[in-house]
């Protein structure tokens, strides 16, 4: 079997170092992706003649529903202006962040944008010290509660920022992929200090690589305190093995369960990962005391720390061959081997195809994408371009059942387009009600993606309730005070949207008959947002 020729480990370390050099040193609130040159495979995929044929209004809606969080009139204008091919190329290689000014101002005003992760972390450390020092039990409890509120607030700010970008960023594919990878490399705010770290995790570990290179993305997620806390690798040390992260790394992040690795591989990987952790000591603080021959092995970058004192230096055999490197180099070598495994290409390709196309993507389509992943050495944009431009993908619009995030964000974009919401709480509430709050999935498998996961009787009823709220009182999103009166009328004028009208001709007779029974605009909105056609993309 042909194996992709992965670069030498030194090359990877260089890339990882380059990626991490930017970590936490970036200007606040920019969330920039490292500019990179499109892989030749991306250009090749976009050269498909099918992408240059003119699109009907309905076809534009289909493409917009697939590539963005949901079609909006303004994105339709962009698509028409650029043409499909150029628009796709732009979506696959977004430049620097350019949220509309008002949305950017809202992001900039957040505490997680104003302060660096170091400052926030020091703030928490100081608060914890004060709690420990408090002699009076009431004072202790008051300080403890204040800290909990603060932690919740930071996690909520990260949710708001995520939604602002999903709703208003012109780089829609990057935002969809940010959600996808946050879900793939899931962490949950219900565990430990994840609330503190999750915003930084998304901003610096996941989002910059959302359309970049999978190997770098994997390393960035591994090194981040959010993941190190969530899957316990921070407490994995020689003599105190914790195999939680090692197992999920293979099972959920890369190769997939049943793809050929063994329990022995999981155990070996757990040993390889001993000493991979983080520290909150000041940046200039001296390294821990190390034996002279281990001093060169110590690594500290931002919060990340590889501590040789905690590492098990026993030689390891992994995926059938001995590992040559030692210390952090051994970790890199193991990750290279995992990402180069054909199982990883297939696992990632299939998950992408399920997310964008259909519960049961054709094997041929998955294979094309997997080959692009292998040939490009894990280039996510090239893999996606191959997937999205494949004829099998273009024959399958409207079959992907929307998960709650797509449903809620998509309906909001359709209804209010670029009008920037001032209150995100209703959106967060709807997502919770539908069972898909951001960063809220407790277990590391992330939210499931199949139709049957989201279309049970209870879920459909809940979805209609949310549809009704949006249909009747969508302007709750524009309140500046929680109890303020709603503007009049309190409902969106959905029927006037071009992106709404463009869909209706292809709808079933039953759905159109239902719309005809509407007695007022709120009824019409309710039926429109509840229609079977609105459940798919």
């Amino acid at each position: 079997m042909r194996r992709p020729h992965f670069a030498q480990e030194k090359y990877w370390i260089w890339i990882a170092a380059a990626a991490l050099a930017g970590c936490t040193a970036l200007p606040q609130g920019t969330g920039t992706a490292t500019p990179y040159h499109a892989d030749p495979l991306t250009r090749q995929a976009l050269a498909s003649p099918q992408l240059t044929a003119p699109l009907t209004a309905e076809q534009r809606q289909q493409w917009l529903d697939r590539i963005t969080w949901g079609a909006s009139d303004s994105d339709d204008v962009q698509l028409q202006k650029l043409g499909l091919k150029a628009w796709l190329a732009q979506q696959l290689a977004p430049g620097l962040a350019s949220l509309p000014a008002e949305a950017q101002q809202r992001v900039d005003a957040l505490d997680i944008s104003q302060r660096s992760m170091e400052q926030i972390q020091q703030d928490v450390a100081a608060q914890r010290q004060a709690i420990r020092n408090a002699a009076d039990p009431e004072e202790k409890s008051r300080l403890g509660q204040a800290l909990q509120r603060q932690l919740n607030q930071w996690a909520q700010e990260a949710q708001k920022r995520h939604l602002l970008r999903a709703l208003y960023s012109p780089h829609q594919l990057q935002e969809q992929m940010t959600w996808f990878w946050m879900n793939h490399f899931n962490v949950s705010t219900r565990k430990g200090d994840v609330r503190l770290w999750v915003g930084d995790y998304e901003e610096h570990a996941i989002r910059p690589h959302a359309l970049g290179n999978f190997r770098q993305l994997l390393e960035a997620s591994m090194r981040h305190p959010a993941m190190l806390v969530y899957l316990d690798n921070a407490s994995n040390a020689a003599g105190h093995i914790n195999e939680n992260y090692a197992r999920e790394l293979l099972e959920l992040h890369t190769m997939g369960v049943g793809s050929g690795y063994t329990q022995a591989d999981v155990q070996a990987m757990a040993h390889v990962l001993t000493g991979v952790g983080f520290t909150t000591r000041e940046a200039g603080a001296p390294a821990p005391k190390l034996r002279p021959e281990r001093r060169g092995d110590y690594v500290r970058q931002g919060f990340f720390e590889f501590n040789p004192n905690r590492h098990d230096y026993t030689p390891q055999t992994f995926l059938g061959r001995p590992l040559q490197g030692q210390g952090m180099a051994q970790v890199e070598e193991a990750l290279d081997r995992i990402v180069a495994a054909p199982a990883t290409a297939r696992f990632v390709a299939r998950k992408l195809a399920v997310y964008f196309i259909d519960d049961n993507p054709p094997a041929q389509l998955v294979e094309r994408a997997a080959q692009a992943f292998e040939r490009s050495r894990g280039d996510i944009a090239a893999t996606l371009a191959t997937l999205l431009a494949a004829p099998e993908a273009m024959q399958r619009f409207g079959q992907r059942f929307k998960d709650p995030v797509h449903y809620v964000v998509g309906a909001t974009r359709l209804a209010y387009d670029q009008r920037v919401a001032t209150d995100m709480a209703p959106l967060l509430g709807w997502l919770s009600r539908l069972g898909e709050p951001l960063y809220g999935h407790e277990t590391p498998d992330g939210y499931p993606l199949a139709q049957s996961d989201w279309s049970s009787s209870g879920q459909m009823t809940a979805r209609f309730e949310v549809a009704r709220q949006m249909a009747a009182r969508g302007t709750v999103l524009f309140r500046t005070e929680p109890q303020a009166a709603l503007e009049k009328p309190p409902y969106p004028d959905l029927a006037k949207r071009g992106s709404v009208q463009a869909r209706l001709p292809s709808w079933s007779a039953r759905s159109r008959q239902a719309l005809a029974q509407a007695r007022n605009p709120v009824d019409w909105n309710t039926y429109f947002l509840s229609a079977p056609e609105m459940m798919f993309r």
Partner: protein
Amino acid sequence: MQRRRFLSAAAGLPFAAYLGRGWTATPQAGTPRFLLVFLRGAYDCNSLLVPTHSEFYYRARPTIAIARPGQAQGALALNADWGLHPMLEDSILPLFQSRQACFVPFAGTNDLSRSHFETQDSIELGQPLEGHKSFQSGFLNRLTQVLQSDRQSHRGPSTMAFTAQLPLALRGSAQAANMALASVGKAGVDERHSQVIASMYQGTPLGGAVAEGFSVRDAVQRGVQEEMDRAGRDAISAKGFSLVAQRMAVLMREQFDLGFVDVGGWDTHVNQGSASGNLANRLAELSRGLATFAQEIGPEPWRNTVVAVISEFGRTFRENGNKGTDHGHGTVYWFLGGGLSSRAGGSIAGTQAEVTEKALFQNRDYPVLNEYRDVLGGLFGRMYGLSPAQVQQVFPASQARDLHLV
């Protein structure tokens, strides 16, 4: 352009058929009821059912073992060999003492992936481990099908998951309802809207689910109304799992005879605690809820009810380096019910092993001696009077074992 799949697929039941279906019919007296409680995340069974006779247990768990009965914060003695977690004194212990609870240690699946997700899935599907798996056929759905097609039963069971999503165990051709019960709000979609919306889905693959969803919503709201009426009479209002359990009890008393619920938060790799702490609190909340359920469903239904509490696997017998436990193999199943047999109620049932270092599976975990499909198949056979062929429909290629639980 290809037509959308949901328009071209086979027609579902017409809406009127659902509205006319007997959702309000209370199960007849003597109807067996079954509730599966799935503890997701692999709970540490050795902290629940403590092998108090095992020297090795205390050596293997220097910081997290539950002390012997009689010692401070010690286990509650169940018999000479086993003890119960001390936090369960007011909830499960009385049930055990009145022969309405039993435990089956060394239970579980032969799936060895030690992956939460794969093992939960494979248990819920209940299909043989070898061969092709269908993710659209869970064992509780197959049980529903068998009971519905059984001519001797006067009516098919009504099946419901008390969860926001339909679990794999209930996926399949028999219709099953679902709704999370922790927070139930007032419906904004009224009767007329519901009918118009349902009409759009008529004849599509989602038609059945949509119609049923409206119907179940109405039933749950009637139950919540009952709660509010009672709260008006100064009843203490329940919280957390107890609230869910109370609502489940009303629904299973009035309408549903086959139920499913899951409870998460058991993956205790770090600082799990012992007599108190994280795990102790989870066990206490779960147990209070189960006791509430037994109380609220009412005496007659409880006599015909079996609650099975299961989990995907056990945890490592030895504690790990972080005062927690990692993914293991065999676990302990609980069976609760007002009609447990005198042989099973108040006992430790099933095939037993010694609790010694030598007896550990792969030198780390409890072995599995009571395979879940065999045990549950045997239970269903007794509860519902199923033929061996019917048990095979529920659990293909299983060897049903009758532990005489009921």
